[in-house]
């Protein structure tokens, strides 16, 4: 069993590695084309993010929200729903958690715990709407979640112009800063790496165990892979779908508030760097393998951190990342072919153990 799992992790990792190398190679080629000093630009992009204690800490800190949204998406793909609403769930989680941290006066770490729980609940609640409509009314969750993103982001914008606005800086769409008690401890000063990174990695491990080692997880995965069979063995796939969506929303919401409590220290309008959407890429890159989600997130952070270092030190704009992003996405979707072939060549009974999700 252990050997089998190790082999599957290895094959996921190898597949992801090929995609990553190809995308980075194309990125390097584009940079070399655009820059007047290609060698310096490429060097800044590739080595900048790990150049010293400060840069390493920043790169890991930047990866943290992507771990949460990557896990959120991997989870939703596993149960066979497309949660393209992680972006909105992240915003609402951040807002609910910030409200708790600012408004409720608690001693010490209790503030952090309560704010994080509030964030997770808000994310889950927002995901419950498309989740329930998908599971019980067959509504198109893709368009639904995309629409709800706009609603959530605008709603948070309103919160920051009214109920949650910083009284000291009227007119700026931002909240008061999080009180010291509510801040997550920093791990690698002077960088902004915070405890949230560890929480995210442990969270992925816990989710992985829950999904692969418990009957609850088996039920969820079974419903996602073969709803008909799940019904036949007495499971309720609709319920699994909703539960999966709730967990996915909770992970996204938690990612939002952890980013605020650890990194930004106050809620800002439009703070997300497309965390919810890039979560799709993270999840697909490692074929919904939760154990590998942190690795993919750090990789992605390396790419965007590299682009930022490059923009600061050379003449290449950071939007070059978009090319790498697009190529990554397309290559990741292309690897679906190998998934498809592998599925076909695997006997029926082994399919349920394959950690390859709906994608």
């Amino acid at each position, binding site marked *: 069993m252990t050997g089998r799992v190790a082999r599957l992790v290895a094959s996921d990792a190898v597949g992801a590695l090929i995609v990553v190398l190809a995308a980075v190679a194309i990125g390097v080629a584009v940079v070399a084309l*655009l820059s007047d000093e290609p060698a310096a630009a490429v060097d800044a992009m590739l080595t900048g993010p790990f150049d010293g204690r400060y840069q390493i800490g920043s790169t890991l800190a930047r990866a943290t929200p992507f771990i949460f949204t990557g896990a959120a998406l991997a989870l939703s793909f596993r149960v066979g729903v*497309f949660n*393209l609403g992680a972006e909105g769930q992240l915003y609402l989680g951040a807002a609910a958690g910030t409200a708790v941290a600012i408004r409720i006066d608690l001693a010490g770490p209790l503030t952090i715990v309560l704010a994080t729980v509030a964030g997770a609940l808000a994310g889950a609640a927002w995901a419950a*709407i498309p989740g329930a*409509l998908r599971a*019980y*009314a*067959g*509504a*198109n969750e*893709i*368009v*639904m979640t*995309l*629409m*709800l993103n*706009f*609603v959530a982001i*605008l*709603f948070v*914008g*309103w919160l920051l*112009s*009214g109920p949650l606005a910083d009284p000291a800086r009227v007119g700026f769409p931002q909240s008061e800063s999080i009180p010291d008690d509510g801040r997550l401890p920093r791990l690698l000063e002077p960088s902004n790496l915070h405890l949230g990174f560890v929480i995210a990695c442990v969270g992925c491990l816990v989710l992985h165990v829950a999904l692969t080692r418990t009957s609850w997880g088996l039920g969820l995965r079974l419903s996602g892979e073969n709803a008909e069979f799940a019904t036949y063995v007495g499971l309720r796939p609709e319920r699994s779908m909703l539960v999966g969506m709730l967990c996915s929303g909770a992970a996204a919401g938690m990612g939002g508030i952890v980013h605020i409590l650890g990194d930004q220290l106050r809620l800002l309008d439009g703070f997300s760097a*497309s965390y919810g*959407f890039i979560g*799709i*890429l993270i999840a*697909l890159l490692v074929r919904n393998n939760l154990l590998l989600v942190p690795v993919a997130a750090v990789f992605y952070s390396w790419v965007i951190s590299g682009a930022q270092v490059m923009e600061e030190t050379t003449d290449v*704009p950071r*939007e*070059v*990342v*978009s*090319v790498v*992003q*697009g190529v990554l*996405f*397309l290559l*990741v*979707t*292309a690897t*679906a*072919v190998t998934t*498809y072939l592998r599925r076909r060549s695997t006997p029926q009974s082994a399919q349920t153990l394959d950690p390859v999700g709906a*994608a």
Partner: protein
Amino acid sequence: MSELLTTAFLIAALRAAAPILIAAMGSVVTERVGVPNIGVEGMMLAGSFTAVVVAIEVGNAWVATGAAALVGTMLALVLGFVTVRWGADAIVAGFAINVFAAGFTVLLLSEIYGSKGSLVRPDISVLPVIELPVADVPILGAVAGQNIMVWVAAALVGVSWALLFQTRFGVHVRAVGEDPDAARAVGIPVRLTQYRALAFGGFTAGLAGAGLAIGYLSSFTRDMTAGRGFIALAAALFGGRHPLGAAGAALLFGAAEAAGNRLQGQGIPSQFVLMLPYLVTAVALAAISVRRTVAERRSLTRVEAA
């Protein structure tokens, strides 16, 4: 509330609805063929960007519109290639198109024009307005001075209907969407049909992007489509994947956008006003799904009772 239903409001609603409607017609066809085109948002954005750039560089709005439609079509063919040929997931691949278009337009914007936000040129060549002598007629006055894109949108409803229900291609599209294996068995070229349907989807999305950028507005701003592609997709679904239904839905969503613009500066926080089209779209989709499910349950219990 009554001032919402003036001719001025109808004019604004039609203007706002036109890009959504145009892209919705393509979405009806792609939904019918069974390859959902989530990439419609990115194709539209790429179309907007292309239209503005070509309008500036060439100085001809018609050439710009053609180029936008061409770019949309090409992106759709890329999507077709990875999904139809490689068997990739259409949703994810479509999303890849969106991510790519969002970033790539900004990259080109900064590389060509040195701007990271927007591209506004007052002297840009835009699509013409068609003046009709009905400005003073009630209701009809709404179409008196509309941009040609509104008329293109109206014509596309007819074109899409004819395409789907009066041509051999339409029969193929519907057959492939219903059951690709059965379609293949009777000799319908499944992949070719999917490619052609997607190409139509990309063509309309690019056209819609041009309508938005050099018809509705006359500038390009990063992410300027702001979910209109997704709303077009929602219109296709809400309209029962039928051109007429989708057109009605697009008008509804366009009216929501126009109502939002109208309500601005009337004491309602701007965020809620901007929320309106997305909220209306989400509620509409939810309502129709619930209604369909309830109806199905009812007919089921009737069968069981009988």
